[in-house]
C-alpha cells in the first residue's frame, strides 16, 4: 500500500463517518464539499491530466443541474431517471463546444471557453424556449425516489454525493492505468512530441473533455437535488474561475491537492461567515501567493522561485 492509497483511504473513511457526528448545518456543508470536490476532480481530468485550458467548467456542471431541473419540473420525470440524461447531455455538449476549438493554443482556448461560459449564462437567464426560468432559475425540484422511498434527508443526499465521489475516484484511478491515461500524460508533458509519436492529440483531448464534463454533469444533478433550486449565477464565469483555480492552487493531477483546493475555496467561506465580506479578497491574495511560492500547486510540496521580499532573511533562522 503506497502513500497515495493511504491518504485516499483515510480521507474516504473520515468522510464516510462524518454524518454520524455532524448536525444538519455541518451536513449541508459536507454535501457542498463532496459535490464541489467531484466537480474539481472532473476539471482535473481536463485541466490537470489533459492539460486543456478549460475555463468554462461551470457550463457542464450547470448542464447537469438544469437537465435534472428541467426534466423533473417541466416533464415530470423522476429525478433518478434524469441523471443518465445529465451525463449524456453534458458529454455531447462538451464535444460540440470543444470540437471546433480543440486545436487552439492555450490562451486562445481559455478565452474561447470563457466566451462559451458567458453565452451559457445568457442562454439560462434569457429563459430559452421557456425552459430555464430566466434569471430566477427553476425551483421546486422534487426529492429522489428509489423503490418508493423518498430520500429527502440531508444524510441521504450526503451519501449520494459520497457515492459519486467514490465512483469518480475509481474512474480516475482506472483512467490513469489505461491507454487513455498514458496518452493524456504524454500530451500534457509534450504535445508536439506526443503528436510526432502518432498519438491522435485532438481525439484524446476531446475524450478527456467529454469524460470530465459528464462527471461534472452528474455533480450538477446532485447539486440541483440538494438545493431543490437552480439559477444561472451558480454556473457563471466566476464559478468556472473557481474550479480552474482549485485545481491549480491545490496541485494538478494530485488527489490531496484537489481536496485541499476544494476545501479552501468552498468550505472555509461557509465556516467563517464573519469573513464573508472579505473572503474573496483573502482568496485572491492566497491565489497569488500560492502561485508565487508553489507554482505547481500546494501539493506535492515543491517550492518555486521565491521572490526576494518573501524570502527569510539570512541568519534569521
Amino acid at each position, binding site marked *: 500500500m503506497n502513500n497515495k492509497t493511504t491518504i485516499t483511504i483515510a480521507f474516504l473513511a473520515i468522510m464516510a463517518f462524518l454524518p454520524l457526528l455532524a*448536525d*444538519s*448545518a455541518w451536513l*449541508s456543508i459536507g454535501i457542498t464539499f463532496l459535490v464541489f470536490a467531484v466537480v474539481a476532480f472532473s476539471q482535473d481530468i481536463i485541466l490537470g491530466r489533459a492539460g486543456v485550458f478549460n475555463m468554462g467548467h461551470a457550463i457542464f456542471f450547470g448542464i447537469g443541474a438544469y437537465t435534472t431541473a428541467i426534466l423533473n419540473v417541466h416533464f415530470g420525470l423522476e429525478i433518478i431517471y434524469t441523471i443518465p440524461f445529465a451525463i449524456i447531455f453534458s458529454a455531447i455538449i462538451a464535444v460540440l463546444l470543444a470540437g471546433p476549438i480543440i486545436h487552439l493554443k492555450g490562451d486562445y482556448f481559455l478565452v474561447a471557453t470563457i466566451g462559451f461560459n458567458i453565452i451559457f449564462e445568457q442562454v439560462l*437567464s*434569457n*429563459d430559452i424556449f421557456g425552459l430555464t426560468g*430566466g*434569471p*430566477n*432559475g427553476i*425551483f*421546486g425540484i422534487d426529492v429522489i425516489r428509489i423503490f*418508493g*422511498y*423518498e430520500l429527502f434527508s440531508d444524510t441521504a443526499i450526503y451519501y449520494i454525493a459520497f457515492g459519486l465521489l467514490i465512483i469518480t475516484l475509481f474512474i480516475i484511478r482506472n483512467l490513469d492505468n489505461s491507454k487513455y491515461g498514458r496518452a493524456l500524460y504524454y500530451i500534457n508533458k509534450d504535445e508536439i512530441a506526443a503528436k510526432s509519436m502518432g498519438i491522435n492529440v485532438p481525439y484524446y483531448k476531446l475524450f478527456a473533455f467529454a469524460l470530465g464534463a459528464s462527471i461534472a454533469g452528474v455533480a450538477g444533478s446532485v447539486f440541483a437535488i440538494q*438545493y*431543490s*433550486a*437552480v*439559477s444561472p*449565477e*451558480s454556473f457563471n464565469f466566476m464559478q468556472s474561475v473557481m474550479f480552474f483555480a482549485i485545481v491549480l492552487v491545490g496541485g494538478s493531477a494530485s488527489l490531496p491537492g484537489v481536496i485541499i483546493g476544494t476545501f479552501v475555496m468552498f468550505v472555509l467561506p461557509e465556516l467563517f461567515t464573519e469573513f*464573508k*465580506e472579505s473572503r474573496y479578497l483573502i482568496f485572491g491574495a492566497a491565489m497569488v501567493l500560492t502561485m508565487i511560492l508553489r507554482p505547481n500547486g500546494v501539493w506535492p510540496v515543491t517550492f518555486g522561485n521565491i521572490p526576494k521580499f518573501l524570502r527569510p532573511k539570512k541568519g534569521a533562522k
Partner: protein
Amino acid sequence: MKIKNIASALALSSVMLSSVAVADTVKIGVQAPITGKYANEGQSIDNFVRLIVDEKNAQGGLLGKQIEVVTCDDEAKAQKAAVCAKKLVNAGVFAVIGSYTSGATEAAQSTYFRNKVLQTSDGTSDSLIKRKYWTFFRNSFPNAAQSDFTAEYMVNVKKYKKIVVLSDYSSYSAGLGDATEASVKAINGNILFRGKIKSGVQNFTSTLTKIKAMKPDVIYYSGYYTDGGLLRAQQIQLQIDADFVGGDSNDNPDFYKLAGKSAAGTVLINFPTPEILPYPEAKKYLSAYKKRFNMSPPSIWPVTNADGLRAIIEGVEKTKSFDTKKIASYIRTMKDFPGITGPFNVREDGERVGAKFVVYKMKNDGTKEVVK
C-alpha cells in the same frame, strides 16, 4: 410507506414543537439582500425587523420568550436564497421575513413550505401566491393591482396615445411589464412597443434610439431604480420628447442621483411612501426607526415587511401558540389589523388585499410632490 411518512413527520414535528417549548427563546429569520445591488433595501428590512423585535423583547418577549433574529444574506439571488432557506430552517426559525425581490422569495418558498415555516415577503410578482402555500403571505400588493392602476392613469387620466412599456428580465419587472401591457390593452390603450433591457449594462442608448424613431408619448419602465435612473438620464440626453413613468421599484433616492437634473418631471407610481403614511402606527414606528438608525427607510418595502412581522407576532399572541399552521390561518382571518402601511387584510391564498397607490412627480431639486 404512507404511514411511515406520516409517522416520521409527526415525530419530526413533535421534536420541533418540543424544542420550541423547551427553549426560552424563539427564532425569527430575516432573508434579505444584505449585500449586493439592493443592499440598502435588505439592510433596512433587517433593521426594521430588529427594531420591532427589540421593542417586543423589552415588553417581555413573545409569550414570555425572548425573540432572536437570525439574518441570512441572499444577495437577491435565487440560488443563494435557496441556501438561505435551508440555513434558516436548520437554525430553527418558526417564521421568516423576506426576501426583498420576488425571485429570491419564490426560490425559498418551497423549502419553508416543506418545513412548515411561515414566510412573508414584499415581493409583488403575481406568481408568488400561485402555489397557494399556506406558509406564505404577502405583505405588499401584487403587480396586477399596480398595473390596473397604472393603465388607468396612462390611458384615461393622461390620455397617452402611444405607449412604450419597458422592463428588465427579472420575474418581478417582466411580470409587472407584461401585466401593465395587458391592463393597457384591456382598456383599449395603444401599446407602441414592449421592450426589455438588460439590468446592469448601463448603456441603454441603442434601445432608446430605436424608441425615439417611434415618437412615443410616454415611456413606462417597470424595473428597478438602478437602471431606471440611467434610462431617464439617457432619454433626456437623446432628447426623446416623452413623459417617463416609473413603476414602484424606481422609487429610491438613488434614482434622482443617477438621473441628475433629468429626474425632473419623472412620474412614479407607487404605494404611499413611508413619510406620507397617514396612520398613527406609521408616525410611531418611523420616528423610532429614524431615531435609532439615523435615516429613514429607503422605500416602503422595509415597512411592509415590518407589517408582515407584526401580523405574525399578533397571530402568535392571539392563538397563544407557536403552531405555524394556527398562526397562518389566524392571519388570514384578521380584519383590518392596524398596520404601519394601513389596514392589513390577507386573503385565503396569502394575498394582501386593499391596495392603495399614489402618483408622484419629481421636482427639480429631487423632492417629489403627490399628484394623485
